[in-house]
């Protein structure tokens, strides 16, 4: 069963086309990764799915019903975990979850039970009377999730749920995502941390310039780039790097610099390793290590969009 189906979805802000005839289908039980750099159109798409923005064209179906005509049904079945914390700091954890769950029509004992269930799920049962202003970043993120799941939505949209938190809380949240999925929730997950997406998601779509440019499982996406290889060169810290000259070497497609590691994506069939090493020697760059990487999602993303996910 399709939990979400998007057909030719378009959104314009003046002359700028944020989402350009996007089509997408997400099946029940999936953890669907949505990858795209800033401004690619992910957030606009999520906002249209959740009813925050109106589209300029196309259709969105939640559990088979068009959200244009079944807005309330759609909203009842969606839970949003926004990237920016959306909680009241001056209300206790319990009051926060209770208030938002109450907006979904829950009342009385059922409401209390669901609030307690949500708080227990995110491990904040013992903090239900505490104010979020006294919480750590990770605890606030967990409360942010609890507010989105108390009404038991079928589709949960998580927009960067692990931004700025400690590894322990991050692991807790990733495990929570898996548990929610096991409980029957379909999840749309966006993150700048490629390894999270690779670890969690059953299917992934790469969005660029408002369009889905690639979609499939991790393996399917990696298979797209069998004609490329990725070479990582570690140099002495802080040495200046002329990327443009490096790109002139035959076969080199993209070059990105992350601190003292230069990542080079090159065509697989062209043997240009000697020329690359020669380039570093000619430019007085001291090579510390050199290795060819197996293709990963980051390589796929970089190859397809020409940009890093964090750009």
């Amino acid at each position, binding site marked *: 069963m399709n939990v979400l189906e998007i057909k030719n979805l378009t959104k314009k802000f003046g002359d700028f086309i944020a989402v350009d005839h996007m089509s997408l289908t997400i099946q029940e039980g999936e953890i669907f990764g949505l990858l795209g750099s800033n401004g690619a159109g992910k957030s606009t798409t999520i906002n249209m799915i959740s009813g925050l923005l*109106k589209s300029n064209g196309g259709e969105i179906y939640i559990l088979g019903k068009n959200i244009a005509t079944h807005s*309330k049904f759609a909203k009842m079945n969606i839970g949003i975990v926004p990237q*920016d914390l959306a909680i009241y700091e001056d209300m206790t954890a319990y009051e926060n979850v209770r208030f938002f769950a109450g*907006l979904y029509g829950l009342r009385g004992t059922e409401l209390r039970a669901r609030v307690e269930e949500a708080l227990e799920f995110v491990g904040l049962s013992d903090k239900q009377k505490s104010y979020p202003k006294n919480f750590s970043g990770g605890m606030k993120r967990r409360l942010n999730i609890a507010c*989105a799941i108390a009404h038991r939505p079928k589709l949960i949209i998580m927009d960067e749920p692990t931004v700025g938190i400690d590894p322990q809380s991050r692991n807790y949240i990733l495990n929570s995502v898996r548990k929610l999925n096991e409980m029957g929730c379909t999840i749309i997950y966006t993150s700048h941390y490629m390894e999270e997406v690779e670890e969690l998601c059953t299917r992934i779509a790469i969005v660029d310039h408002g369009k889905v440019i690639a979609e499939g499982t991790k393996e399917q996406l990696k298979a797209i780039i069998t004609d490329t290889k990725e070479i990582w060169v570690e140099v002495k810290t802080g040495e200046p790097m002329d990327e443009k000259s490096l790109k002139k070497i035959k076969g080199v497609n993209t070059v990105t610099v992350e601190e003292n590691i230069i990542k080079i994506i090159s065509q697989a069939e062209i043997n240009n390793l000697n020329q690359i090493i020669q380039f570093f020697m000619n430019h007085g760059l001291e090579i510390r290590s050199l290795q060819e990487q197996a293709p990963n999602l980051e390589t796929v993303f970089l190859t397809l969009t020409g940009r890093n996910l964090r750009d």
Partner: protein
Amino acid sequence: MNIINIALMEFKRTIRDHRTLIFMLAFPIVLMLILGTALSNAFDNTIKIDKIHVLYTEQNDSHISSAFHTFIKEAKRENMYFSNASASIDGKRAVKQDEYDAYVEITDQGIQFYGSERESIKASIVEGMLTAFTDRYNLISNIAKEKPNKVQTVMASAGGSYVKETSLQADRAPGSMDYYAMAMTTMIAMYSAISASFLIRSERIRNTAVRLAVAPIRKMEIFLGKILGSIAINFVCILIVMAFSRFAFGANWGSNPGMVILILFTEVFLAVSFGLGISYMIKSDQGTRTIIMIILQLASFFGGAYFKIDNAQGFLKLIIDLSPINWAREALTKMIYNNDVTAALQTAALNVGIALVFLIAAITAFRKREGL
């Protein structure tokens, strides 16, 4: 139900915001105490009259002399002291030089009176008593001519006093604490506009607007719930300030609390709608706050919140009349001191009318906007 839930949440959160609560409660009460005590003299309507000194001359053996001397003795009881002028003194000049409050010449033709322009009240009192004296003298003289046997009866009934105390019931007026209780309460009611300007904006700043907007409720439920909560908490603050001024400072709130509460409630409604309306007209946070603060300060100043402005004319009067604080306070004064229900109802209707204009403007902008 959603509206009530949202309103309750707004109410609860504002109560927990100690800074706002202190501003809404302590600020008017402290100002009431300071201004009500410091400016109490400005509201004192009584006039104290000191001793009255009158200079007089009399023609020798004037037929009125003996009666006049009796009058002088009686006048002493009213704190009026007559001094016989020596020949060398120019009576009129002495009055002009402020040495006496009045000068009187007694001749066979009657009594000539010259009063001080500077001490006009004292001079008027002397003139009044002399008029009473001459009227009585003429009456008794005529009776003596026509029916001499009745003179004793008339004199006995007239008594010795030339002053009759009559109380004129002027419009009752508030004392300083009464005035500042009304002024501060109406002022702080208008200050509800500040928190109202951040009602929806604060949800956007806090990102909770996203959660509210994705919930399966209508946008208008969110809007109305927020307004209802804001009006409720601000009105409760007003009632607390009112009760405190009544029981701690003894301020007079009249005998018709229903009408007083109606005026204040509609003023809070006006303030909340005004704040919300401005927040949709001005895009930036800072701009909204600045505009509202300027308008509130001008409305407070010209509305007589800090000091009473009497007898304003022309442009100043126009500005004063435009202040909601002024018209609410005026309506309260008329209601409390003259039981003027019409004035109270007119002001309540004006408040609601203007509030609806701002509210409609805010609702129109709110509905056009995507999200909250």
